[in-house]
């Protein structure tokens, strides 16, 4: 299909919207209400273009214009500018944007004037300022001056929808993105427009927003009406250091941008990764970051003669470790690491364990079986049946839940163009028909429960066996769903994997091959999938982290079992955890927001981490900490830095992580290491949202209760005020 945009001819697939045709031709159209992953609506009327198409005579030939060879199909223009986001481009269509059409330029400037009529001039105090679509577009396409000399609309300016999202009703431009987001993405009908015309405002019926995925509306609101309450007034958009990286709070590995200012992590916004999280992240990933800048350990701590942990230098800590481990056979030192360590860190630890001949090596959390993922997240979204076994996705892998809900909407992934994801994919519709019969949930009740057509309460651990040999009608129906589907996906959660053994893996493989189902077993920890490829499990005669108390001496990184080893204990962590308080030497660690490295997510995708500018004193990642530990033990350090660890990783598993791109790449490791593990229940949400700064929650409450009336003299308008 050929389309002409401002005289440039572009070749496009049928069904493309006019707005995407313009962007494909390298043009630009301002837009507010269209959003890549939401249905096009045509609410804001900013994306106006002039358009026309050729018309055919009754005999099938084109109505021509001109004489002889110079004749071309006559273009019949629409009498008025059209909204390009809701208009489908057709064969031979001609489109004129503001670049070539006075009419469009005037219409857009006029539309902008309407949008700004009731928009307060809040830019200096608005957290969106500097990253605001309305600001940018008003600058590019507006008149540049206001002709509106009257009082603007006044509405609630300070309206917390929840502890995490704050609404300013005056700033809303009624694009309806937030309303559509809740309806279409997490499938929760909570927000809506109330009243009509100039009085329209956004509110919830029930009061409050459901937790889980509410923060995404702060990203998509094109103005500063919906804002991140955690990052409120922490900095202006141009003052933040923006670091695109990967969230490693759970095994989904969403793309995020970490915004830091003055060495503090102030805000996290979603990044786009079409293969993983599209443009959405969960609330734990977005709002669960204050721990990274609160009460951090910034120096090593060494226990003195009085039994108190006192700040020390790294050299003093190395000396203390050396003295504490004197006489201990090196092979007796336990090496334990949290499963959110990067692959590079894991490789360095495995190499040190080899060098020491250490037996007590482990990472936590992990399952006793390793089930290699065969489905990708895109497979989940485009499946025609999904069976979830024993998973509480909200606590284990929240964004996986969104991809399942996408499957229920028909799994329509927006098209991709050279300019990126389609801005308006016309196949996405408002209030899409859902197909709950395609989803079966077996296990305990969870948020997903309400969306599923098949719900079977079952004990997670033997659910797999029961699904393989269905014994009730419910299970038989689920099995029939699996058997009848063409692209089924089976998702196993912690309840199903806890205590699972090799026979369960065989049973699963058998079930998968019989039904043709692809499988995702949600790893226990954020990088458990990747770390399983490294020899980080108890070796012959070794003990796991669950039997820490019996290990003669231990080095524990980013783990909080709340106990110490039998003897000398070194803890490497970001905070003074319960375990760190019991340790003999505490070494300060960096969070995953401050690391460079690679992790592997639940679908086997290698994803890169980039370090954000967060202040953490003398904290070090595991690779550098192991160098210090090696020095204390008098052995050669396996790797001195990131480069060395990458080489180690290349040598041990044959993966060059230096070349991992932003979007990540699927990878299957040839070999994996498993060992019996203690049962583990992921608690992502509960853990992340725990350390809240009480202060501001109360403050917001006070503000609402206080009614937000200021003792300001009402008479004379303030200089510099907006009207």
């Amino acid at each position, binding site marked *: 299909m050929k389309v002409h945009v401002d005289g440039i001819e572009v070749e496009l697939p049928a069904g493309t919207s006019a707005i995407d045709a313009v962007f494909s031709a390298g043009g630009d159209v301002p837009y507010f209400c269209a959003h890549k992953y939401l249905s096009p609506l045509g609410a804001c009327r900013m994306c106006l273009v002039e358009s026309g198409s050729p018309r055919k005579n009754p005999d099938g030939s084109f109505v021509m214009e001109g004489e002889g060879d110079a004749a071309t199909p006559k273009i019949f223009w629409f009498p008025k500018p059209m909204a390009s986001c809701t208009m489908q481009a057709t064969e031979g269509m001609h489109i004129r944007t503001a670049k070539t059409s006075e009419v469009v330029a005037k219409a857009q400037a006029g539309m902008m004037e309407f949008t700004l009529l009731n928009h307060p001039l809040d830019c200096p*105090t608005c957290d969106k300022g500097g990253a605001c679509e309305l600001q940018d577009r008003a600058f590019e396409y507006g008149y540049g001056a206001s002709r509106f000399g009257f009082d603007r609309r006044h509405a609630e300016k300070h309206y917390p929808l929840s502890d995490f999202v704050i609404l300013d009703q005056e700033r809303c431009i009624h694009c309806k993105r937030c309303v559509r987001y809740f309806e279409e993405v997490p499938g929760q009908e909570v927000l809506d427009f109330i009243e009509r015309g100039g009085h329209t405002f956004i509110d919830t019926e029930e009061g409050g927003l459901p937790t889980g995925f509410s923060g995404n509306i702060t990203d998509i609101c094109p103005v500063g009406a919906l804002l991140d309450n955690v990052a409120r*007034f922490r900095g202006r958009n141009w003052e933040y250091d923006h670091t695109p990286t990967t969230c490693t709070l759970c095994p989904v590995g969403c793309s995020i941008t970490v915004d830091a200012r003055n060495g503090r992590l102030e805000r996290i916004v979603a990044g786009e990764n079409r293969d993983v999280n599209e443009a959405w992240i969960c609330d734990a990933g977005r709002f669960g970051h204050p721990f990274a800048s609160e009460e951090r350990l910034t120096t090593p701590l060494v226990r003195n003669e009085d039994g108190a942990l006192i700040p020390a230098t790294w050299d003093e800590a190395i000396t203390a470790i050396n003295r504490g481990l004197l006489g201990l056979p090196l092979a007796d030192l336990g090496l334990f690491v949290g499963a959110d360590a990067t692959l590079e860190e894991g490789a360095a630890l495995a190499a040190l364990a080899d060098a020491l001949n250490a037996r007590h090596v482990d990472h936590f959390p992990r399952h006793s079986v390793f089930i290699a993922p065969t489905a990708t997240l895109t497979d989940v979204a485009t499946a025609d049946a999904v069976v979830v076994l024993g998973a509480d996705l909200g606590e284990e892998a929240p964004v996986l839940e969104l991809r399942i809900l996408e499957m229920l909407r028909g799994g329509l992934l927006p098209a991709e163009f050279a300019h990126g994801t389609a801005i308006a994919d016309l196949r996405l519709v408002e209030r899409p028909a859902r197909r709950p019969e395609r989803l079966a949930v077996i296990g305990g009740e969870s948020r997903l429960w309400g969306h599923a057509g098949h719900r079977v309460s079952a004990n997670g651990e033997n659910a797999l066996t029961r699904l393989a040999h269905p014994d009730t009608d419910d299970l038989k129906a689920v099995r029939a769903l699996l058997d009848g589907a063409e692209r089924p996906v089976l998702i196993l959660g912690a309840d199903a994997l806890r205590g699972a053994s090799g026979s369960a893996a065989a049973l699963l493989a058998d079930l998968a091959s019989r039904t043709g189902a692809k499988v995702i077993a949600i790893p226990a920890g954020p990088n458990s999938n990747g770390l399983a490829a490294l020899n980080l499990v108890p070796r012959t005669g070794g003990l796991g982290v669950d039997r820490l108390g019996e290990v003669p001496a231990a080095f524990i990184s980013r783990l909080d079992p709340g106990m110490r080893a039998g003897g000398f204990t070194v803890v490497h962590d970001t905070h003074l955890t319960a375990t760190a308080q019991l340790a003999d030497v505490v070494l300060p660690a960096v969070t995953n927001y401050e690391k460079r490295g690679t992790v592997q997510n639940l679908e086997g995708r290698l994803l890169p981490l980039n370090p954000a500018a967060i202040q953490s004193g003398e904290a070090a990642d595991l690779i550098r900490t192991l160098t210090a530990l090696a020095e204390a033990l008098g052995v050669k350090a396996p790797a001195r830095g990131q480069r060395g660890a990458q080489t180690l990783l290349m040598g041990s598993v044959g993966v060059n992580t230096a070349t991992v791109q932003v979007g990540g790449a699927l990878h299957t490791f040839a070999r994996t290491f498993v060992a019996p593990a203690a049962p583990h229940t992921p608690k992502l949400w509960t853990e992340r949202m725990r350390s809240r700064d009480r202060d501001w929650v109360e403050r917001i409450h006070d503000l609402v209760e206080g009614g937000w009336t200021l003792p300001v*003299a009402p008479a004379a308008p303030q200089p510099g005020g907006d009207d």
Partner: protein
Amino acid sequence: MGVLEIAKGMGVTLGKLFQKPVTVSYPEQRATLQPRFRGRHILTRHPGTNLEKCIGCSLCAAACPAYAIYVEAAENDPAAPVSPGERYAKVYEINMLRCIFCGMCEEACPTGAVVLGNEFEMADYRSRDFVYAKEDMLVGVTGSIPQRREATRLGKPVRLGFQLDGGQPRAELEGVKYP
């Protein structure tokens, strides 16, 4: 060159000898400044309510070519607001060593909060004493940090080394009075 020319030249010199000098014996005597002279910043307040005009928007910091300004904003307590509206500057600092007194901050400020005043005597001993905080610049504070330190030591009011031509600061310097 003749004797006559030399005599003429000497005549000019002699003539000047009996005129009133244009130099002043600063600092014993006060220098006279034009009101448009630009010196140390003043953070003004709204007359009447006495609330700070600054809303902590950081636009001055963004406009500053010398990166001299640092602003940290916070939410107003409705019971005891610092500025009108939701937002105020919790921390507002200008590094006077970096500042080139260009006035871009004043131009960028949407509320007319930061205005370059007329004070210029800020010489001090340690670099860190050149970082002026909000309490050093709010309207009503007379004198620089070293001048106020000296005044406290001597138990006397701050003595500024200048007076304004015409006696009145610029209109933007709302509420500012130089003694």
